[in-house]
């Protein structure tokens, strides 16, 4: 847990990545892309950005795997909730 342990990736590069992805996202909205393709692309881009933040800014990449488990544990539950309830309302 000493200073030697701290890995500092190139934060400015990550920032550049986030910036570019955001620009692509906003630009995509104003382009004529089929709706379902647009939604899929936007979700993927958002997931990519979120992953960049989690892995580099929040250092998940450099933490023990078990800590990543703490972070990931709630996600399947959220998916279960939303998918099940969507099924309910989509039927009507």
């Amino acid at each position, binding site marked *: 847990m000493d200073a030697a342990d701290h890995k500092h990736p190139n934060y400015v590069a990550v920032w550049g990545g986030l910036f570019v992805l955001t620009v692509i996202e906003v630009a995509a909205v104003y382009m004529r892309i089929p709706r379902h393709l647009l939604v899929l692309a936007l979700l993927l881009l958002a997931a990519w950005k979120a992953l960049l933040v989690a892995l580099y800014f929040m250092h998940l990449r450099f933490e023990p795997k078990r800590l990543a488990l703490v972070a990931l544990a709630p996600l399947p539950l959220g998916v*279960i909730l939303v998918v099940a309830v969507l099924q309910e*309302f989509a039927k009507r």
Partner: protein
Amino acid sequence: MTAAAAPHDAGLHAGHDDRPWLRRYVFSTDHKTIGIQFLFLSLTFLLLGGLMAMVIRWQLGFPGTPVPGGSVLPDAMAPGGVIRPSFYNALVTMHGTFMIFFAVMPLLTGVFANYLIPLKIGAPDMAFPRLNMWSFWLMIPAGTLALAGFFVEGGSAASGWTAYAPLSNSPLYTGVSAGQILWCLAIIIFGASSLLGSVNYIATVVNLRAPGMTWMRLPLSVWALFITAILALLAVPILAGAIIMLLFDQVLGTHFYLPTGGGQPLLWQHLFWFFGHPEVYILILPAMGIVSDVIANGSRKPIFGYTSMVFAIGGIAGLGFMVWGHHMFVSGMNPTLGTSFMASTMLIAVPTSIKVFNWLGTMWRGNIHFHVPMLNAIGFLSMFVIGGLSGIFMAATPVDMYIHDTYFIVAHIHYVLFGGSLFAAFAGIYYWFPKMFGREMHDGLGRWHFGLTFVFYNLTFFPMHLLGLGGHMRRLYDPTQYPFLAPMQPINVFVSVSAFLLMAAQLPFVVNFFWSLFRGPKAPLNPWRDNSLEWTVPSPPPHGNFVETPTVYRGPYEYSVPGELEDFLPQDRPAPARQEAH
């Protein structure tokens, strides 16, 4: 690593205690003091909730007649002592709210998680003692706000503890406005308290275990409390989110659950039960953990199948997030979804039966000491079996179609929450009272309390199954209104009288508790000859718990080890001359 990663109070160790009075007894950050504060708080709310139940039972047994002593109630609640329907609905709502959020949950997690986790894993205190203090002190405004509902215009929340929208959305439907808002605020603050507690319990168990206290050497009570904390951590925020939206529907005019504005009433039920079912396990898992400890101790035998007990707790918790729809079989939900929820619900019977059979296996060929905690643990086991089996009726969708929202459900939840959680809580209180207060409780009074409670408890709640099978709806102000229910009124009278006696049967406990608190004989270090670490420190343990961080050599259930002089082998005793048999 324990000492290195110690909580904020660096250098905290037993023996030196120069905290001023206020920091010591009121705004204390000591997990033991906080645990005891939670004990008094939850027992107070337990009493309040119980009194409400008495009034409810009076109305059901003797509808339309004045409650004895009810003339003190204001006219808005009970003119001339006769309960108004609106007050009845408020009582039903607040009985559930108090019992679940302010009595049983703090009793099991607040008291036992706080008091036991650090002591049992060999830590000086919680990971975040100051947050822990806040966790307790947030409960005071939460409870006060909930209680305040009774004294505002329109009375307290009256849409059930489940607060089904849109009934709970608008004063148009219930006549309650401020009361419902206060209820929402109270539960949101309660959620914050629960969150602080959960973060603490999880971080403490993960990072503050003493050397040698491996995961598979944790007492099952700690395992259960740990997994409960995870459940609360992930489930309570969903409730907070749902209630915030409910609150906004009332005060900001949003339309989340209001069909007139395009909202979805069933959305509330999904969110509520997505929290609500894990909540049920939050209320029962710690009880299972406590009972596991007590049964192994009382039987003087290692717990049967420790590993599968741990996995069963985990399995119940995991399944708990996938079964919420079984509360909504008749809600108008998609029938296909209902089928999947029935399947997942049925599966819960598997880990549950593992636990029950393993407890029986623990007693098998034991040397059973019927001390008072053990009696209560046996009470838990026998009653939980009934509660568990009656659950299968509800899991079967066609049968649920008939018994849903009837007294069968009421019987089931009370078999699980009273027969289960409360008997376990009593077992825990009797078991750890000597450690908490340094004095022993009176044995005879304890036996009377258990015996009377066990008898009247069954006389109160078992007939409710019959009422439910007769079709008796729950939350019904006056059952004699219905031609098909009126013939069953004698059962209602019987249940009510039993309930009053059940309440009276708690008197020995109250007397015992307070008498022992001040006059009980001095408790020895380890009255139950238990292996766990809390019994190696003085009763009550000093601030900082352990003078020297203990080292753990074995699991907590090494009773009757062949070749040992005594029938127990504490976790921190260096290994005996011979190798551990495994």
